[in-house]
């Protein structure tokens, strides 16, 4: 690390073995503050598992995870979220039976610490309501506020995912294939949105993505995973030039 500041997120020797099968092995990386790190790799390489380990939904069998000044290796997922580690899931996981607005309001209320209040009206709290509205506007779902989330299109759900994340005002966001399954015309919007969030809100971003063309314009650095291991971690230009990466990502020649 060139500066003296601690990295936003540090993973050391992280591993996961389940019943003799190695899913993730000896992954070490540091994410700098404000950095945009993209993780690529073929299907089944362990990218989502790495996210699950970092966010705490899966417990590692080896290694250490440090978030800012905190060792969070054994922290519960909600504790990590509270420290400012936000994530989206690969398959969109909004609260399907609730309205679009209620989805973000919940997140805003959770982030502002008002979720435990029993004596207030959820629809009468000024601060969460304002933050929720702002987040919906930010992702362009303002007009869909009253729609039940289950009735949103796939692309809209992914945007809602992002809006929920924004409400929590995390310092580090993990985005798991945010454009997967989106219509072509929606992808551009999504990329712009992610870029804006990264630049304007000065967030540290880790993103799993398959489309290299999208990734190149966003990433500061790229990490390549293959068979549960970190194959390379470098600038996009150098990653593209790397032959090992080429063969891993596009398939070994037969």
């Amino acid at each position, binding site marked *: 690390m060139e500066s003296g500041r601690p990295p936003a997120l540090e993973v050391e020797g992280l591993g996961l073995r389940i019943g003799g099968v190695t899913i993730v092995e000896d992954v070490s990386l540091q994410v700098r503050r404000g950095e945009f790190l993209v993780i690529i790799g073929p299907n089944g390489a362990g990218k989502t598992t790495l996210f699950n380990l970092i966010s705490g939904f899966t417990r590692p069998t080896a290694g250490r995870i440090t978030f800012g000044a905190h060792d969070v290796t054994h922290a519960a997922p*909600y504790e990590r979220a509270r420290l400012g580690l936000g994530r989206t899931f690969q398959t969109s996981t909004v609260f399907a039976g609730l309205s679009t607005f209620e989805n973000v309001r919940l997140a805003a209320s959770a982030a502002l610490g008002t*979720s435990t209040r029993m004596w*207030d009206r959820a629809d009468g709290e000024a601060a969460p309501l304002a933050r929720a509205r702002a987040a919906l506007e930010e992702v362009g779902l303002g007009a869909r506020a009253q729609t039940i989330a289950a009735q949103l299109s796939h692309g809209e759900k992914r945007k809602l995912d992002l809006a929920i994340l924004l409400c929590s005002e995390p310092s580090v966001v993990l985005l798991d294939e945010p454009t997967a399954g989106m219509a072509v015309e929606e992808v551009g919007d999504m990329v712009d949105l992610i870029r804006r969030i990264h630049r304007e809100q000065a967030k540290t971003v880790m993103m799993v993505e398959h489309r290299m063309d999208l990734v190149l314009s966003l990433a500061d650095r790229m990490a390549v995973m293959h068979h549960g291991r970190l194959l390379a971690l470098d600038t996009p230009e150098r990653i593209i030039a790397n032959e090992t990466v080429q063969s891993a990502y596009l398939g070994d020649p037969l």
Partner: protein
Amino acid sequence: MRFALLAALALLVLLFPFIHVTVPGLFEGPLDSAGTLNLLGLCFVFGALALTYDIVFGYTGLLSFGHALYFAVGVYVTAIALARWHWSLPAALVLTAVVAVLLPLALGAICLRVRDIPFAMVTLAFAEAGSILVLQNPFGLTGGEEGLALGGGVLPAALVGVSNTAHLYWIAAGLLAATSLIGWWAVGSPLGRVWQAIRENERRVTALGLNPYLYKLASFVLSGFLAACAGVAYLLLQGGANPQVTTSSFTLVLLVMVVLGGVGTLWGAVLGGIVYEYLDFRLVEFSNVPALQALPGVLRVPLSEPLFILGVLFIVLVLFLPQGLGGLVRSAGARSER
């Protein structure tokens, strides 16, 4: 507009004990008769109880098979304090309130460490333990299978006797109003909204930085406490405790009430509870109708068993009307608006 209607309805309900009108077919005696008021009071109590179950099952998504236990706490703790220890009513109520918070807190803390079907089973098991305890009649406290009657002198005079049924009726109506208000307030509060989020997707709630366990426990305790309050009103209306309310069948009946009315809508649950109790009561009377008695056994026996008719009705409802009566009312309303 809606509130004006609701207020008018509430006022009318409160005035029933002064209305000497017979509603043919609906009630046996006139509105102000003790029999009708008692039936209505019980309907209100079960409406309130169904609502408390809907908080934990319908809103938080916890399939508890032990809810009867907390109702039984209200019934038995109060009854024992009054009839066995001869405490005053206020003292008995304080004790009941304390137990009604601590017991669901302790059992909820244990049960909520598991989810889904294991959660259902372990709540069922604890309720069963409660039932065994009541039937075993420890230290002669519960009266075992006989139950526990509130004899003369243990209750204030205003709550005893046929002539005072109106007072009990008002207590039951007040209980239903208070429970509805608290339930409505709770599910609309930031806390209650988290319950619904947990029902939709618990993992996502975790990712928001909230610990679902504590929220589920809050729902469990609130609904348990309110169920105990309903239990107290039931005890007063019935004038005694009866081990029937501790059984697992009773929890299943609660499930029937809530599904009958529609899961996840408070007023649907209330409606389900009221309709269930009314049918249960009226079907007993129906079974004594001479015309029915004259039928051959194959028809007479099933028709004179309220639980049989309700069970079949329930099956039909689950098969063909999964939204419950509430859903039927809603869709009828939607049609009339169009």
